[in-house]
């Protein structure tokens, strides 16, 4: 526990945002890293990695490059997992079924609920944010490159920055949707 507290403090050092932001960010990085390695147990391996780093800190190890250290430990944890996986001959995760078209009659309750939450959260955005994300994501018959370049020009920014802006709005939406789904679970 002591190591974890020290780790959280170290991760927040020099960063902006409320306490714990650094910890959340490294957690997301680790989960994505393991997922991009096609690991089905990304969250478990993330916890394992964080525990190991926290232990090292509790033992008094001085770490100069924390990001690099996390990566090193994550690679080690991944290798161990892959060896174990091969040993136990785990099955590869199933590929998804069909990609559903909009308005398909066979959508399940969870998807329906998620869609309703997205609608609600879209309404909670500012008008500028909503216009941006809708124009960014919604096809309009023109090539996507042309549509997005027009939008970037209209906003007076580069296309790369437009992508990041859209992504940040989506992160906001994801958080709103997650809260919405939780509220529905409680009901």
């Amino acid at each position, binding site marked *: 526990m002591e190591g974890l507290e020290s780790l959280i403090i170290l991760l927040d050092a020099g960063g902006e945002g409320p306490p714990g932001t650094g910890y959340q*960010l490294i957690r997301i*990085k680790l*989960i*994505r*890293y393991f*997922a*991009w390695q*096609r*690991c*089905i147990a*990304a*969250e478990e391996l993330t916890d394992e990695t964080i525990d190991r780093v926290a232990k090292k800190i509790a033992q008094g190890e001085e770490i100069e*490059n924390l*990001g*690099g250290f*996390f*990566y090193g430990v*994550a*690679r080690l944890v991944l290798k161990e997992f892959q060896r174990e996986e091969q040993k136990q001959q785990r099955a*590869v*995760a199933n*590929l*998804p079924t069909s*990609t*559903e078209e*909009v308005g398909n009659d066979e959508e399940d309750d969870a*998807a329906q609920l*998620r*869609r*309703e*939450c*997205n*609608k609600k959260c*879209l309404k909670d955005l500012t008008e500028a944010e909503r216009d941006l*994300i*809708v124009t960014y*994501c*919604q*096809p*309009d*018959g023109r090539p*996507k*490159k042309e549509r997005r370049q027009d939008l970037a020009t209209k906003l007076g920014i580069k*296309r*790369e920055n437009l*992508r*990041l802006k*859209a*992504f940040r709005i*989506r992160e906001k*939406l*994801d958080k709103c*949707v997650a809260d919405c789904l939780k509220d529905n679970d409680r009901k």
Partner: protein
Amino acid sequence: MLDIGNKNSQRLVMYLLGELSAEERRDIEQQYFQNDKLFQELLSIESDLIDDYLNDDLSADERRKFESQVLSTPQGRRKVESSRALLSAISEDAPKVVQRGTNEEQDSWWQFLWHPVKTRAWRFATVILLFAGGTGWLVVENFRLRSQLGVARTTSRQNEQEVLRLQEQVTTAQHQRQQDETVLRSSIEKLNEELQRARTDRENAIEVARQKESQLRENLRQTESSTAIATYTFPFNPVRGTSEQTDPLTISKGQKTVTFQIELGPTSIPTFHVSLQTVEGNEVWGNIKKARRTRASNSITVGLPATVFTSQHYVLILTPSPPNGQTESFAEYSFRVVRK
């Protein structure tokens, strides 16, 4: 096909689709673990990639790789489901736009109107509806443009006022600058006048000093001439007896003092009685004098007022003092004085 922009972004797409070598993957992973901005860019590119997948914008090869890489994990599937829900919500609530055709045959709206199945009434109703819609749109657009024009006019008036205000400020600043320049010029002129006065004073002072110096020199010359000293040297005579000096002592009119320089030769006698006598033996002047010893010689210097002398012969007699038991004088000099 994917269109993701610059080379760095394309490299990140290849990372997400599993198209990079192990070394290239490690390089990117090291970077995003240490660089939060790069990680965010990667997430945004993944988000775009998922949208492209859902909108069927990937090639067959890209689609296959996406499904293998992203949809093979619960996290990847959750992200795809989230994006699917968002795109559905957007398409249901956002203004309807024309959907791009995929592999299916899709009628254009024009074909939809003029499909032979539809009745003439239907077409007429559609045309009326379009006309009404167009008119309504024109009215709304007109109102919007008028509103924009009003705002633009207000803005233009405000800008004009701002320009006037700035012009006034410029004028005031120019006026102030002119005043400051006038004051500065006046100050410079005053300073120049003072400088000129100071120069004149200095020149005057120099002239006065020169005059004083000249006067001082004159005074000094006169003083020097009034205190001019006649010096007479008596060389050392190793032979006992009176030494006859060949050159006379010449005393000029302005000379007030006569100095005798008497060379004693090698002697250890410290003090002498110096007596100036006439040839007849009358002492005109007498005094005790200490010998001055230098490395080279011993000597006595005697200073006498010039008034003591008249034009005649004199004898200068040196006798050790106190007497050393000898009655003989140490040295005797005979010389003639000429007064001019």
